């Protein structure tokens, strides 16, 4: 109990004093996970919507695969990405192992199936009559898709938040492809693991609290957008 109190005090101290290293780590976490979520948002919502709206042979199988992808173990993604991008791997010429870019890629791979799966369900949940109604009003296919996405705003934003939550909190892939390099690829989660390993529990708890605060702030903003009432 005392340890947790120490951790809270430490978190307070670190935030109030604008400790540069902690600020840097926090900003980097936000940048990397934010970028990855952004990428997954585009790919996930568009592909999820596409699968939801088209009928093709093997659709159920594809949906099962996407749903399985939602539970893809981050550490497995990290391992595969590492093998792909290390020096002597097929993508070694890119030289992005142990860089924040590799972390963004790995996190995007983790988040995309999550966003895709939930978007898929969200769009499928819309009444098929709605689609016909919009088209009958003279909308083009693109306009119809855009209106459907806006109609499903609630669950789609939930999908984005789920994707963000998945990657801001993940550590296995980030350590493997990022290398936890001080001032360069060290983020809140990887720093927490390292400080725990060193026995600096107060710092580890402080970093955890800061991570939770960060996640809360981002989700606060996203929830505002999600729950916003349209003037009717």
């Amino acid at each position, binding site marked *: 109990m005392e340890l947790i109190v120490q951790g809270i005090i430490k978190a307070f101290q670190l935030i109030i004093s604008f400790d540069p290293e902690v600020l840097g780590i926090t900003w*980097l976490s936000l*940048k990397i996970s*934010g*970028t990855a979520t*952004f990428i997954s948002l585009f790919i996930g919502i568009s592909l999820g919507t596409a699968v939801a709206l088209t009928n093709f042979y093997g659709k159920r199988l594809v949906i099962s695969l996407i749903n399985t992808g939602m539970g893809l173990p981050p550490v497995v993604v990290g391992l595969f990405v590492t093998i792909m991008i*290390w*020096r*002597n791997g097929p993508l*070694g010429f890119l*030289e992005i*192992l*142990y*860089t*924040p870019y590799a972390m963004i890629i790995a996190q995007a791979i983790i988040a995309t199936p999550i966003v895709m799966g939930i978007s898929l369900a969200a769009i499928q949940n819309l009444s098929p009559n709605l689609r016909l109604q919009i088209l009958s009003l003279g909308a083009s296919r693109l306009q119809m898709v*855009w209106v459907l996405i*806006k109609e499903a705003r609630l669950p789609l934003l939930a999908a984005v938040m789920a994707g963000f939550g998945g990657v801001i909190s993940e550590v296995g892939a980030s350590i493997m492809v990022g*290398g*936890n*390099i*001080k001032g*360069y690829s060290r983020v809140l989660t990887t720093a927490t693991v390292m400080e*725990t*390993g*060193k*026995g*600096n*529990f107060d710092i580890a708890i402080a970093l955890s609290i800061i991570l939770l605060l960060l996640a809360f702030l981002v989700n606060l903003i996203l929830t505002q957008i999600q729950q916003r009432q349209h003037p009717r």
Partner: protein
Amino acid sequence: MKMFRSSKVIITLLTVALLFAFGTANVFAGKAVPKQKNIILATTTSTQDTGLLDVLIPIFEKQTGYFVKTIAVGSGQAMAMGQKGEADVLLVHSPEAEKKFVADSFGVNRQLVMHNDFVIVGPAADPAKIKGIKNAAESFKKIAAAEALFLSRGDNSGTHSQEKKLWKTSGINPEGQKWYQQTGLGMGQTLNVAAEKKGYTLADRGTYLAMKKNLNLNILVEGDAALLNIYHVMEVNIAKWPKVNAAGAKAFADFMVASKTQSIIKTFGVDKYGSALFFPDAGKKVEDLGK
């Protein structure tokens, strides 16, 4: 349609913000920027957990303009990385494995950097009664006889290799015994587990001292020559892996044995822990250590 336009504005703003964030993600000012700027240093957890590299690396980077990517894993994994050409220079402490590494031509220019020693730590109650025993292998025998809980790194690290050597000397095979538990974790975390479970473990003095205030473990056995913990720096052989940054590796190795660096190593930790965590040895012979 008004909705559509404002969404476009939001998307544009977000994209601009992202590009800005992306652009500032990797601003790196080096002095005289060398051609191949990145060096991948594969090292053990003890050099990172004690904070030694946090002191040395910035000095090296400022001096040379290289960017060092320190990947702290166990000595075993570090050498595996070297074998696959995924690291440029190694700073490890697993002498037998290192010698094989060099013999197999994966590493070149193996140089002695520093040493400290291992200590056998355990609970104050000391159920196996090993406190003060001079011979490390003897104390291992007593731990086995008492079936006292022993935590092993179990990860092919330098510490793990030293521990296995001691078991071999003692003639005991602890594998599969109930009191012998392998964590697979780094030194700091293994010490935490040992402290929590009130068990014995083998630790390097540096990491133990750095973590002492949070643990409830005492040093029970120390000083045996078999407990010497010796660090070497090795450059990965460019002949085997052409993509290796050989110039950078050499620069780092030279830095580690340079007299100025060695002085820093000599005083590292004194103000914080009361005694130095590492003893600089560049240029000495291994046989002369600890004498």
